[in-house]
């Protein structure tokens, strides 16, 4: 019962095997498209960085505010924090984590630091040792821990007493043009350490530390909006998409789909154009849900 293809009529099964491969894009065209998309991505990141550098802290303040209210036993009220949080969560649930990939100022900082570091590494010919994949897999759980600790501190009402430690706050102050950072020595040190991490690993903060990302990761992203790879059509041994992915996301169907930050780099690099959004491959609509219900029930 676990084989989902049983719900397809046999002729459709055959069709999907005999279908001619889609017209393959010329390498030159692909390169051009890739470059255009890269520039577009950077332009969007710069615009958001300049116009709304504190969006990520505003949304996360919604979470902190919520737990602080619980501590005080006060009813939830509609304010800018909660609005930003709800709006961003709804958007992410419908379309995926575009916010992380394009709009988050801290994510853009990470991209920029990593870009500079790559340039420097190429020029000097010395490469930083890559983080072992296994260590990365373990460290990917850290954001949940950080999120839980912050929620707990807010819920206990002690968060407000801890000042000057937050690297986000230091970053937000700097982007707001406030350089009176005397009270935030710990925050400055943490920010510098994080920037060192950003130089060594792509999207270091997003993958290993970001508590807002932890929230986004757990959200139910509408399956239609997830990027999917048609693995049957892949070139044997090609893993261009996985190597390029800034969050080291495995683009097979399923597990940890929430990791994807929708930067779209994999779509541009794939020589076969195998990665796209749309319905979950081969299975359409309700039968999927039924088949799952039947297989688990």
């Amino acid at each position, binding site marked *: 019962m676990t084989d989902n293809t049983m719900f397809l009529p046999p002729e459709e099964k055959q069709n999907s095997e005999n279908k001619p491969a889609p017209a393959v894009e010329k390498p030159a065209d692909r390169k051009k498209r890739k470059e255009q998309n890269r520039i577009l991505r950077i332009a969007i990141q710069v615009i958001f960085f300049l116009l709304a550098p504190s969006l990520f802290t505003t949304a996360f303040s919604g979470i902190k505010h919520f737990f602080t209210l619980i501590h005080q036993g006060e009813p939830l009220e509609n304010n800018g924090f909660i609005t930003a949080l709800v709006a961003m969560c709804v958007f992410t649930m419908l379309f995926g984590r575009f916010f992380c990939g394009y709009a988050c100022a801290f994510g853009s900082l990470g991209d920029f630091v990593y870009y500079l570091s790559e340039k420097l590494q190429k020029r000097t010919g010395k490469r930083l040792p890559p983080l072992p994949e296994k260590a990365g897999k373990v460290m990917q759980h850290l954001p949940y821990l950080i999120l839980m600790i912050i929620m707990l501190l807010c819920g206990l009402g002690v968060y407000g007493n801890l000042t000057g430690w937050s690297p986000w706050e230091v970053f937000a102050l700097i982007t707001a043009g406030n350089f009176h950072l005397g009270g935030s020595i710990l925050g400055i040190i943490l920010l510098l350490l994080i920037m060192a991490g950003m130089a060594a690993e792509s999207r270091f903060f997003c993958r290993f530390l970001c508590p807002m990302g932890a929230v986004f990761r*757990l959200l139910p992203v509408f399956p239609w909006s997830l990027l999917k790879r048609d693995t049957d059509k892949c070139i044997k041994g090609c893993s261009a998409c996985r190597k390029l992915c800034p969050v080291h996301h495995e683009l097979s169907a399923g597990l940890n789909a929430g990791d994807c930050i929708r930067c779209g780099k994999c779509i541009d690099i794939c020589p076969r154009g195998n990665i796209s959004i749309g319905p979950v491959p081969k299975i359409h609509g309700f039968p999927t849900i039924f088949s799952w219900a039947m297989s688990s029930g």
Partner: protein
Amino acid sequence: MDDNRQWMLRLMGLALILAMVMGYQIKALAWHSEVVQNEAQVHAAEEYNAEIRAAQEQAAQRKGPAGQAGRDADAAKTYKDGSYTASGRGFGGDITLTVTIAGGRISDITINDASGEDKAYFDMAVTLLQTIISGQSADVDAVSGATYSSNGILTAVRNALEEAAQ
């Protein structure tokens, strides 16, 4: 398929969390209305006390000038009428505001410039103005979660009141 299965599981998790939030909200609203009721009672009692105090003072004045000293001390705390503009450092720069004193009391506070502040945070901090006016004092706690903007507002108000006291 795993994608759909995971989506459903997460949807259920989200529904559970939202249900918990709703449950909390219903409970908290009930608490809140109790608090409001209690406050109304306290307020009524205080008003009644004030009436009695006023009556006692009147009676004491009729007897002799003994009560006068206490009233003079009170008068010394009030401010000179006028408008006082001052600023304090907020999140992304200085916050400038004008405190209006009428009849020796803080009657109004208007924000002149808060261009360096982030809207969501500043909107929360701005609720302090009402607290300051109703308490007639800038000795109030910063709004948690909007500390920088709050401190900017409080510093500015304190600076303005210092001017007004001279």
